[in-house]
């Protein structure tokens, strides 16, 4: 039995998740079948919300209202979108659906095994009860609930993109879409001249010349402080200030941890950084060179705004950024391949860059993804 959201007090942080419990037809789509839009896991409820939103026949201006995208779909488009979303749902593996739980569900557990209770579980009257909505994971004897849409949870070694909000003595504070601000120590940052030395008072006074407020920075999580906030480090050449590009904010759960987060798209001469915290950077490619070169270039750069980004590159950057926006609005997991595919699909169907954020392309992308997943599934089952 589903507990509807109205009767239950909303614990903080669950608000956006429980949005999905809007009362809709019970024949459609109970929670666990709102499956796999975003890759392997069950679907984000927002998209479901979208389809249900117009199923509940809300006004046309609300239909398809997504984060950042105000779309007005006409009738055919709505139908097509509905069909695509439905197909994506049906493609979801049933196994994932079975393991989904909501708050206060009992997790089926063998009583004989002494299981280890992990995150998202609690012991009530001898039963293991879920305290989060998500999927139950079992690792050896550990049982925990993995949330599908949750705030960013940092791990050591994550690549993140953040924005400087404050310069404090010997450190910068960055905003990274987390409950607390992250700290980048001056000593964890490589100096412009590249020499390894102790940071002196002069260095401290010149912190502004390295990063200023509102600069976008890429860094890596070094560890946690005792109060839970993050320590970052930006020692390598790849990290540091990001210029000449766009910063996009997407829900953090759409970026899964992979082997590689820095992508250099040679075809477009564009750098794509998928920050694990949901900040995505699309920008002109920066050649990672020796430190000494930077010093020589500096006078030249400051004197004039030389080599501005060529128009072609800018167009590519915009196209990729819009592709990311569309995909995040649809709730698909962001991978490089998918982003490139979407961008190329827009080129091949001759969609204008600004039209990419329109209704037609939105629906088209949903359909393309449904088709791609169906093909993949067929290939897999065929191969088996």
């Amino acid at each position: 039995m589903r507990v509807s959201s109205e009767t239950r007090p909303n614990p903080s942080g669950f608000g956006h998740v429980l949005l999905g419990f809007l009362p809709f037809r019970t024949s459609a789509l109970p929670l666990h079948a709102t499956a796999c839009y975003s890759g392997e896991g069950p679907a984000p409820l927002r998209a479901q919300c979208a389809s249900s939103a117009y199923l509940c026949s809300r006004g046309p201006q609300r239909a398809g209202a997504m984060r950042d995208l105000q779309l007005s779909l006409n009738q055919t488009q709505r139908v097509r979108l509905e069909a695509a979303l439905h197909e994506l749902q049906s493609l979801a593996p049933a196994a994932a659906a079975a393991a989904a739980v909501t708050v206060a569900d009992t997790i089926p557990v063998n009583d004989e095994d002494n299981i280890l209770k992990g995150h998202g579980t609690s012991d009530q009257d001898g039963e293991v009860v879920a305290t989060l909505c998500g999927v139950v994971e079992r690792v050896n004897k550990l049982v925990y609930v993995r949330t599908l849409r949750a705030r960013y949870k940092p791990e050591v070694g994550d690549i993140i993109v953040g924005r400087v909000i404050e310069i404090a003595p010997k450190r910068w504070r960055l905003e990274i879409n987390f409950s607390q601000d992250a700290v980048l120590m001056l000593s964890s940052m490589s100096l412009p001249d590249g020499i390894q030395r102790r940071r002196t008072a002069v260095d401290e006074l010149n912190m502004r010349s390295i990063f200023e407020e509102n600069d976008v920075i890429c860094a890596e999580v070094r560890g946690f402080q005792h109060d839970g906030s993050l320590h970052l480090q930006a020692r390598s050449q790849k990290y540091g200030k990001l210029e000449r590009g766009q910063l996009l904010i997407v829900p953090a759960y759409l970026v899964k941890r992979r082997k590689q987060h820095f992508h250099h798209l040679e075809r477009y001469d564009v750098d794509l950084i998928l920050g694990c915290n949901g900040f995505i950077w699309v920008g002109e490619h920066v050649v990672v060179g020796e430190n000494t070169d930077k010093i020589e270039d500096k006078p030249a750069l400051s004197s004039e705004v030389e080599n501005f980004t060529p128009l072609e590159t800018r167009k590519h950057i915009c196209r990729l950024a819009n592709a990311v926006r569309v995909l995040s609005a649809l709730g698909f997991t962001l991978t490089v391949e998918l982003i490139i595919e979407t961008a190329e699909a827009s080129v091949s169907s001759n969609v204008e860059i600004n039209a990419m954020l329109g209704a037609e392309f939105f629906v088209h992308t949903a359909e393309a993804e449904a088709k791609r997943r169906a093909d993949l599934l067929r290939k897999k089952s065929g191969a088996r």
Partner: protein
Amino acid sequence: MLFCRGVIKVLFSTETFAMGVNAPARTVVFDSLRKFDGKEHRKLLPGEYIQMAGRAGRRGLDNIGTVIVMCRDEIPEESDLKNLIVGKPTRLESQFRLTYTMILHLLRVEELKVEDMLKRSFAEFHAQKNLPEKEKLLLQMLCQPTKTIDCIKGEPTIEEYYEMALEAEAHRESITEAIMQLHSSQQFLTPGRLVVVKSKSDDDHLLGVIVKTPSAALKQYIILVLTGDCMSSAIVPSSSNQNEKESGDFKQGYFVIPKGKRGMEDEYFSSVSTRKSSGVINIKLPYKGDASGMGFEVRAIENKEIMSICTSKIKIDQVRLLEDPSQTVYSKTVQMLIKEQPDGNKYPAALDAIKDLKMKDMLLVENYHAYQRLLKKMSENKCHGCIKLKEHIALMKEQKKYKDQLNELKYQMSDEALQQMPEFQGRIDVLKEIHYIDSDLVVQLKGRVACEMNSGEELISTECLLENQLDDLEPEEAVAIMSALVFQQRNTSEPSLTPKLADARKRIYDTAIRLGNLQREFKVPVDPEEYARDHLKFGLVEVVYEWAKGTPFADICELTDVSEGLIVRTIVRLDETCREFRNAASIMGNSALYKKMETASNAIKRDIVFAASLYITGI
């Protein structure tokens, strides 16, 4: 410091002083040249001597540093001294060990690959030292222009042809070897059988006829082959040589011919009858000759030089060919051979291995069929009849050699050639198997827990935690079992354990054995028993249990024969382990374990074991 300033004039010290402290002296005196290194009494090593003797002579203050060796009763042997003073110090050897913790930590970082780390270890030093040279060589080789083969018939298909030829050659060798071993082929290899023989000089094959089969005296086949070139000039002297051999007493050669050897006169009639040959070979092999416009040669060959056995036979006169060499007979044989050659170039049909020789072995039959198919394809290829074939094949051979060299060089420079690669691969497979990393080498929850474990063996600790083995234990018992991971001494007295502790001990031991087996399965060089025994030492379990329960230090020392210092050290390290387990608990999200570890840590952190200093009492 006082010594360095000169306030203290004489210092008596152990070897340790010479090792790490920067305190040179004017004179160094060796009390003895032998030492005990923890395992045995032995002589000093040259390296150690150099370290200690090198202290003599302060820079800037002394012109000369003096080293004195105390002899006392016996003067050391000259050879010993020589070895000590001018011997080679111990070679530097890499002590780099690949551990799971290292791999997991490196996999968490995006920019560093584990292979890069392996490359930088000392074990790879020699290979990496030569790297720039190899790179230069590679560039040079790549810049060399490759000679293109011009095909006169249009598109060059020489590469395919060459590859087919190589394959065919490989097949042929295996087949002919098999054929020669077959019993039935021996029946066919009788005198008079036509065979195709591999020639020594080039790859062309020669048609020949078996003159004599191997016997006890001579283990080779005697074959008369057509060589194609006329060598008429060589004839007369050689035949005269033969004659000379036969009748040793005439020196002049050409004019007086003994009665039985009228080779020249026998041209006019050839006797059909064949005398029974006595098996003697009276000609010198290889015997080259010339007849009917074709050069021929009689030579002895091994059976593996026989390329194929032909279907046809001719009549030969063995006696006349070998014992009484007669030019007529040679010429007749050559003529017959020439007749057998269908159109001057191709060879007569060969015996079918399957039908005629009844080759039955399945692999060989398959080989044979493949070989036939290849031959057919080769003949369809345009290169087959090409006049430039030999030239092109030679070029191809060269090119292939060059390509092989290039690949070899590339391999050596690549990651695959690292010494520790196989072990690394094995360990990665183990980690994948137990789900510490997924197939994309992204670190999972278990891997993150394992990264926390720095004091004990990481796999055993993580498995122990995730199997919830500490669940039913009290904090005191839990910390007692954890002591097995940090205690470092074998051969201690057996502790007496409560039943619960004994159970827990067995559980963790079984886990270790299981992990050892798993590693061995994936080719990591680990022996399960040894692995379990090395990483789990249960000597102090009872001691730590008692200590955690609150027993005074004096009492717990009585429980075991381990020295007190070691007990203290182990318990201090245990505190660190408790902290790591606590962090692991927060990663896993289990608060009960977290609290248990905190309690355990507080239980052992008391009294003398955690006193900051024994000399200064503080609060």
